[in-house]
């Protein structure tokens, strides 16, 4: 049975784990190709207008798997919580329902459920046919394998990428599905690497920064991704980065709050910040101009003020 995995949203964190899970269960995982114009067009046409671009792109991948790859079922990550007391955004909670509206009638879904109320890692087959192929013991073994793969992937993400030269050091804050999707991010990481910049990503933020209380906030941030971005920004500031780039999807609710908090903190530290917003109308020329101008700004500032 061929089960399609959309290469979108938290695939960029957990994708390898999902693949190995499906393999261990005896399915053939089919991962959609990296985002391109095709998936964006399919997604924008299928999804509601108000939703953020990453979710639209996810829908594009789902349609690609169903219509082009003609898979037998689609794997849908229903991720409400991936850690204690913190949440992924509401759009992830409603993902299966949105996918159902997009899928061809009758195509089954295999839900990967991350929810503290049940288990942080569990699987739910909406369709009886898939469920029959998945005895509990098999799932248990496949899950433990997936967990191991996930932790390896995490180590990989947390390791410093990019050059270790003495040049510019730039911290990037972004959700993984914006940052690691080369099409959505307009290859931001590649452009920075080409400019010989040492890049810090949110995944490189040490755990103690994620656990620490955020000074000046009287409540903890309960969004997993937003919290990581906030912690990363504070960590970058302490590391004395030359600048920070915030890549955000237009219309992202949590980001509109966290982005402002981050901007204020970085201003207190005197660290230049470039905000880049992504939507389906984002032009590459404007993106490149801003990025280039920002790198100039940071370089000139460094060479004149030390």
């Amino acid at each position: 049975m061929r089960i399609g995995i959309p290469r979108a949203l938290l695939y960029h964190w957990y994708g390898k784990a999902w693949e190995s899970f499906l393999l261990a269960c005896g399915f053939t995982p089919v991962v959609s190709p990296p985002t391109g114009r095709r998936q964006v067009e399919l997604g924008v046409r299928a999804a509601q207008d108000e939703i953020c671009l990453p979710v639209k792109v996810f829908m594009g991948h789902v349609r690609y798997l169903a219509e082009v790859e003609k898979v037998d079922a689609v794997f849908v990550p229903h991720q409400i919580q991936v850690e204690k007391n913190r949440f992924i955004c509401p759009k992830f909670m409603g993902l299966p329902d949105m996918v159902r509206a997009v899928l061809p009638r009758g195509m089954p879904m295999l839900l990967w459920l991350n929810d503290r109320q049940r288990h942080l890692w569990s699987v739910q087959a909406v369709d009886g046919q898939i469920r029959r192929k998945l005895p509990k013991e098999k799932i248990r073994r496949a899950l433990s394998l997936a967990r191991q793969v996930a932790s390896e992937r995490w180590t990989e993400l947390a390791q410093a990428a990019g050059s270790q030269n003495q040049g510019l050091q730039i911290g990037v804050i972004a959700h993984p599905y914006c940052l690691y999707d080369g099409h959505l991010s307009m290859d931001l990481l590649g452009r920075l690497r080409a400019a010989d910049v040492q890049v810090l990503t949110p995944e490189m933020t040490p755990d103690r920064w994620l656990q620490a209380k955020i000074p000046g906030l009287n409540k903890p941030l309960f969004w997993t991704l937003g919290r990581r971005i906030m912690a990363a920004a504070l960590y970058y500031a302490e590391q004395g980065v030359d600048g920070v780039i915030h890549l955000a999807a237009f219309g992202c609710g949590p980001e509109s709050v966290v982005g402002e908090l981050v901007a204020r903190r970085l201003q207190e530290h005197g660290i230049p910040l470039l905000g880049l917003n992504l939507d389906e109308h984002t032009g590459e020329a404007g993106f490149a101009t801003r990025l280039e101008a920002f790198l100039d700004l940071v370089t000139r500032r460094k060479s004149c003020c030390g």
Partner: protein
Amino acid sequence: MNKQIWLGVDVGSVSTNLVVLDGAGQLMQKIYIRTNGDPIGSVQRALDELRHREIETVSGLGITGSGRQLIAAAVGADLVKNEITAHAVAAAHFYPDVQTIMEIGGQDSKLILMRQGVAVDFAMNTVCAAGTGSFLDQQAGRLKLPVERLGELALQATNPVRIAGRCSVFAESDMIHKQQMGHSLPDIVAGLCLALVRNFLNNLGKGKELLPPFVFQGGVAANIGIRRAFEEVLGAEVIVPEHYGVMGAVGAALLAREEMQRNSRPTAFRGFGLANREIHCESLECTYCPNHCEVVFLQLDGQTIAGWGDRCGRWQGAKKDLRVG
């Protein structure tokens, strides 16, 4: 030692500007022509004009503006820079203590914050072109006025009307409405200037600390009405540089000088003879992958010398250094 000559070109959506600086960074010549949708032709015309002004050997050439990639490949540039850096460098060259730069061009507007001579923050208008030169052009056309006259007309206003500057479509219908209500033309034009300035400061200046001295440059700085509106809203004097319309080109020339002084090498400029050579572009939709990038090839006298527009770099060959970005 030979006298140094630095060329700067700013290929914008509305105008193409070319400047000649001497070794000390003083402006010797400037040419300002309308791009009219033909960046290559307009640069050729500018070069042709310079040829007749007996310029000596060129030490280096820098290019900026939205057409920088195309023109850099065509004329051979020593440096290709974005407009933001170019404007910041030019303003700081003439006004070393400038802290806020407002630049309004044909299709985009920028706000650059400077401290101690270096840029510390900037903002550029995103998808909306309300308040830029093209919009003023369009409104002047509708009012059957030369765009150059809008500014002096605004100064005659006694009671500027309120106009919604948030969007050019709304601004236009507001202006028509005010005309139908019987408001005088100067009051409407002055209202338009104020609306555009508020829109600029709200959109780009949000949350930023705008400190004097203020420098206002770009083609729209010719409009005295907009300058007055800035002064009124900011409550401070706004300086318009003598060469406000070509500051981007000046910045490109200064940056080329900086670059060439750092890495001494012969200039890549193909010479003024380019004005008479055949420069031509061809495009295709690449079908290697589903992205279907629109790829452009540049030909000089029938020979392909550069290609771009592809995300993967397949068509760029040896000309990678000319990529925007």
